[in-house]
């Protein structure tokens, strides 16, 4: 099973969240809304490229619009593999974090 990096997780979750409207600008805005981070397009496309190489998303071309200067949108859609990967990641993360709340956060410090 191919692992996801943190950044890939973030992008993939955005694509999932945006459903049919997942393309560059929208993904960037979504990430900004949720995490407060601005992801440069260069980074964004780099990550999307990696995701499509791993077959977690696939590309589809939309209609050209005026705002884009007559260029088409490139939509990203989830694949089965993407969904599985996210599920897997979530389970793993949950397991890792499961007893975090009950841990002693002050051991060895401040003495």
């Amino acid at each position: 099973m191919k692992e996801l990096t943190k950044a890939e997780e973030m992008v993939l979750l955005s694509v999932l969240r945006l459903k049919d409207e997942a393309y560059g600008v929208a993904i960037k805005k979504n990430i900004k809304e949720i995490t407060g981070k601005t992801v440069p397009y260069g980074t964004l496309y780099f990550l999307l490229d990696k995701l499509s190489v791993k077959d977690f998303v696939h590309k589809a071309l939309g209609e050209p619009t005026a705002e884009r200067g007559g260029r088409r949108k490139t939509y990203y859609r989830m694949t089965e593999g993407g969904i599985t990967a996210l599920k897997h990641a979530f389970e793993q993360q949950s397991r890792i974090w499961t007893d975090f709340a009950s841990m002693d956060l002050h051991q060895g410090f401040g003495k």
Partner: protein
Amino acid sequence: MKALQLPIAAQWMLSRLAQQKNRLALLGDLQEEYAVDIAHRDWLARQQWLFSQIVFPLISFLRTHYLWRRGMFSNYLKTAWRNLKRSPGYTAINIIGLAVGMAACMFIFIWVQDELSFDRFHTKHERIHRIVIHRGGEWTASAPYSLARTVKKDFPDIAQATRFTSRTLFAKTGDRGFNETAGLVDPDFLTMFSFKLIKGDAETALATEDAIVITQSAALKYFGDADPMGQVLRINGQRDATITGVIQDTPKNSSMQFDLLANFKIVGKQMDFSWWTGCSSYVLLAQNTTVSDIISKIEGTVVKYDKRVETNDSRESLQPLARMHLYHLNETGPILYVYIFSAIAAIILLIACINFINLSTAQAGKRAREIGMRKTVGASRAGIVRQLYGETLLLSLIAFLFSLVMVALLLPGFGQMTGKTLTLMDTGQWQVVLGILCIALITGLISGSYPALLLSRYRPIQVLRDSASKGAKSPALRRILVVFQFTAAIALIISSMVILRQLNYVQHKDLGFIRENIIRIDIPRALRPNLQTAKERLNQDASIINVTSANTTPNQIRNVNPFYWEGRGPNDYETLNFTTVDENYFQTFGLKFTEGRPFSAEFASDSDRESPGYIINEAAVAHCDLKDPIGKMFSIWNREGRVVGVVKDFHSRSLHDEIRPVVFLNTENWPHYWMFIRYQPEMQDEAVAHIQAVWQEMVPDLPCDMEYLDEIHRSAYANDARIGNIFRNFTYLAIFISCLGLLGLAAYLAELRTKEIGIRKALGASSLSIARLMSGEFLMLLGVSNLLAWPLAWWAMRRMLSSWAYRLPLAWWLFAAAGLGAVILALLTVSWQSLKAAHTNPVEALKYE
């Protein structure tokens, strides 16, 4: 509302930065973000957004790119250094060969530049022309004394005009008196030409008759630190001249050289059209005039004003100031040497480049694997081409630095050789610097082309699999290069031998008159009335054999006058060279008579003004078609007289020219300018002392300027001798560089065949047969080079020698000697390597690698 577009420049920049794959999507996203979120904000915010979208990626792009580049670059440098270090011999030969070649090229370039710069420092040089006149079958720059004044008056297109003639004047102030070269000029001179006036006013400095302008160094000589302005110099002991200006010393690249400038009128009365001797006229054309237009206007001026018969075939033309130095009036001159030396520079540089190419290709085998490895790990062909070009450029730049050092160190010596004072700063105009830099770059590029283009083409798999050296694989090309190189070297050897032989011949040729032990003295005007007494007084010493005076020196008879002779009438005249002489002339110079007798005081008719006696040379007899010439009528200026003698031909001009018809007269219509004193060979000191004593007695105010006739003869060919010298030295250089290349190549080939030689020796080959094996190929190549060089040199030297009317034939043995010399030299070069290879222990050889 129409959506706002990204600025065009930003779109272009972004599309350059974006990856090909996602370019459209990326640009679309940026455009959308800009149109929706950014466009409605204020100007500053828009710029900020654009800035962050463009500049940040740009910076990171450059940084990554540069890091990689720098990495590769330092790797290239390291590789280059390792390669140079691995074979220090080749490296040294490569660099020295190139450096010497470039230094030679630079020297010639500096020389050529200096030659070409003559008279171009005058800001108006393009509009200044010298009037030249076609007369008596040849062009002359001597013009009637009043021509300059007349054309300026008659033609408004001629803005300014001046005469220029160079005279030796004796200038004296207090107890300091020196002979000075004076330029006699008209008032326009200072404003026409760009000789820089330091003190005084160019407009008026030479306006009056007794005004004089002196150079800085002359001023220093006479007055030291005192202000020379307004001081008085006594000229020729006859008249006083007031200094009205101080001028900069004449630049070395000026055709006009003088210590002081004086108004033309200082030497005497206003002279008219009948006065010609040795005075040239310069005109400044008005703006927006064409030369051909002016020539057609001034043509015929002399004929119009001078009604005498002998000038009615004269025709005027203009010669641009800047051509004066390079072109004699017959359209050859130093420009020939400029071409010849440029060609030599090109040949030497080519030889050096060929060496470089040869050695680099020879080394190619060692590099092939490196290139293969680089290609395997992803180097592009362009990258490899760049690397190899870079290496040769680097090497050529190192050689360039070496050559610069060489030039800087050897320039004074070169200056001595060429008779010029050259400094890098002096000729350091931007053209020279640029030219030299271009030479370095072109050398690097040419030298690098072959290895770069050839090596980068190899397929890596082939290179890495084959253990054989690739360098050995292009013998045909290498042979052609060696042949070319030696063809050039042999042709140069032959040429320099021919030229030096010709120069030696010229300097020692019997001119038909005695030139040893003869002193020449310029007769000052003050002495002319007492010339006869002076000659008698001079003759009264045991050390003196003969004293004579004449209008010209025997090897410089160039004056022309109209003559007719038996069978022709006054209107059917022809211009011939002539000179006036006294009775002792022929005896003093040892001139032989084929018929008749020399002039003699016993025959009063010889010097009769209206019906003089004539002596002509053999060439004149043939030219005038006189059979039995003695007693035949001959006439100058309608003064009919009889031929009394025929003198054997002698060289009345330079050896570049044929012997022309010459007429001698014993009348006083033409003043004697020169006195010649022949003395006993062993008694030179006594003779000089005696002459000085007589001089003190006759003209105590004036210095006695003695010259030796054989030195005058030698110095007439000094320039030719210098050229020959330069030629010889550059031939040495070419040979040196060729041999250096051969040495490198021979060493390489020996190395390549180390194993073969080891096996041959192990099987019983003798050292001699090995040496023969190694040298055989070079011998064959040299043979071919000889066959090519001979006709080439023959053709070039035929043309070169055609400028001499009297020349030695091209001897076959010169060609054979040059060829043999080259073969021997090459064999010596190669045999060192061959013997080394032949003498190695086969065990060593077979263990090799």
